[in-house]
């Protein structure tokens, strides 16, 4: 930048603010010596002067600008699709097994039940939810039909060959082990602010999309080399992360991204890494706009939830589309998008 009478004030500013190098300073001083009138201009400039800064008035509509994370429509759709498809899968499995053996549900002690917590969609540690218990024949026979309780809640199994409904859960018989792959809770319409107990329940259901990992933590899982664990941020940035799944965490947040786990999932050669992700709880839902304003401090829930949505909804969409070619065309689209994450699981699932 060459010093001229047109831009001399720019140089004077930098000169007065002591932001020029030595050579340019000398150039400015020479210019001032030749043009004394500009010395007055420089003298008028006080380098200590800054426009006094009044306290910024609080913007009154701040809370209205904040965005509440919502579960994307496709996740809701995926959840719905998963529910419907798994109902079909369960029905098919029962039909298939009964047709093949005729005695799949005849009181064999290998039957296990997966008990879900009644009406409370939040899994809490130490309650036994997700664990498997032997079930008597009497319990099985008195259980309601699947269609009665599987509308909003589905238990998914990689190799369930016989299923029958038990109140609050699904009884699953496995051929070789007691494995429940996942449980999904269908998302519902979110509530912006909690006004009533009903809202709390709705919000819980709406915001809780969980993948209940109940695979037995076997010794084998510990001995297999663990996969690299991505941080929560990486999961958000690169979802779905191959061989990684999100698991609902009943606590408040992902407390420690390094707190990772692995588990053997049937159909997977390697143990699947899973990370505890935050899930909404009733008392965490903002009750007022002010509370919501502080809500942004939380971890990005929807991204983690979305990871699961892609995993569960699309995995099963793919599976069912392959099994039932006449399935809805929309499922094909979901299946295609699910490839990255669901393919290895789905293909192994289908081989079984």
């Amino acid at each position, binding site marked *: *930048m060459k010093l001229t009478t047109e*831009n001399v*004030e*720019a140089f*004077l*500013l*930098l000169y007065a603010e002591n932001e020029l190098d030595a050579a340019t300073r000398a150039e400015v001083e020479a210019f001032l010596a030749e043009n004394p009138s500009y010395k007055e*201009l420089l003298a*008028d*400039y*006080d380098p*200590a*002067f*800054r*426009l*006094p*800064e*009044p306290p*910024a*008035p*609080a*913007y*009154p*509509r*701040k809370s*209205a*600008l*904040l*965005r*509440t*994370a919502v579960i994307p429509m496709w996740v809701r759709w995926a959840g719905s699709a998963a529910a419907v498809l798994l109902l079909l899968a369960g029905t098919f499995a029962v039909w298939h097994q009964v047709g093949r053996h005729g005695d799949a549900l005849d009181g064999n002690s290998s039957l296990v039940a997966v008990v879900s917590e009644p009406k409370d969609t939040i899994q809490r540690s130490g309650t036994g939810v997700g664990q498997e218990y032997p079930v008597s024949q009497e319990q099985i026979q008195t259980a309601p039909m699947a269609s009665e309780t599987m509308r909003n809640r589905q238990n998914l199994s990689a190799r369930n060959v016989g299923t029958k409904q038990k109140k609050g859960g699904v009884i699953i018989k496995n051929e070789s082990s007691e494995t429940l792959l996942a449980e999904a809770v269908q998302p519902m319409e979110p509530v912006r602010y909690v006004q009533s107990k009903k809202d709390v329940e709705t919000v819980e259901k709406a915001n809780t999309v969980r993948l209940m990992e109940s695979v037995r933590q076997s010794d084998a899982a510990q001995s297999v080399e663990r996969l690299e664990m991505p941080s929560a941020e990486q999961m*958000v940035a690169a979802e779905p992360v191959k061989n990684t799944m999100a698991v609902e965490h009943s606590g408040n947040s992902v407390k420690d991204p390094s707190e990772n786990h692995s588990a053997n999932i049937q159909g997977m050669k390697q143990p699947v890494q899973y990370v505890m992700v935050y899930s909404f709880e009733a008392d965490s839902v903002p009750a007022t706009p002010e509370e919501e*304003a502080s*809500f*942004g401090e*939380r*971890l*990005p829930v*929807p*991204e983690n939830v979305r990871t699961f949505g892609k995993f569960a909804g699309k995995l099963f969409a793919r599976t069912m589309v392959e099994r039932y070619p006449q399935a809805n065309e929309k499922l094909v689209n979901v299946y295609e998008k699910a490839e990255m994450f669901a393919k290895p699981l789905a293909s192994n699932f289908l081989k079984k």
Partner: protein
Amino acid sequence: MNTKEYNNCVKQHSDALYRFAIQYISDTAAAEDVVQDSFVQLWQQCDRLTQEEAKAYLFTVTRNQLVSIYRHEEVRRRYAESLPENDRHESGYRQMEMQDVLRKTLSRIPEVQKEVLLLRDWEGFAYKEIAEITQLSEQQVMVYLFRARTAMRKHLEAEGYHFKASSLTKKQSKDEIDN
């Protein structure tokens, strides 16, 4: 930029944007609308902006809206000035607080200088960033900043204020000293 980062931007920049806006337009409701519209635009651009880029983006879109509104206000102001003296409201400058003094003195310098001055001294933008926001060259930004600071200091002194140690204080008049 994700939802959390967007919300952080709201918390960090909305007050400053509002302060910036009300230096341009006297109607606070209109200033609020401008800020709100700016954040709506930011939300729409979340996919292509990072949190670091958000501040300059917000000031750019706010400034563009303000320029448009200011032009309309200027027409109204000229109309008001054409009315007889007793039709105008009393300003009550004697009772003005510092903010009012600043508003008054800022109104005496050209808009472009005011813009540059606010962005630099209040918001701490670099010359280059100010140039991008105001669509000026960096050199022009420095020239305007030099002129604005010089003019503002003189105007404030003429109002009986002097600037010392980063604060503005009112000079006592000779009568006040005598009393």
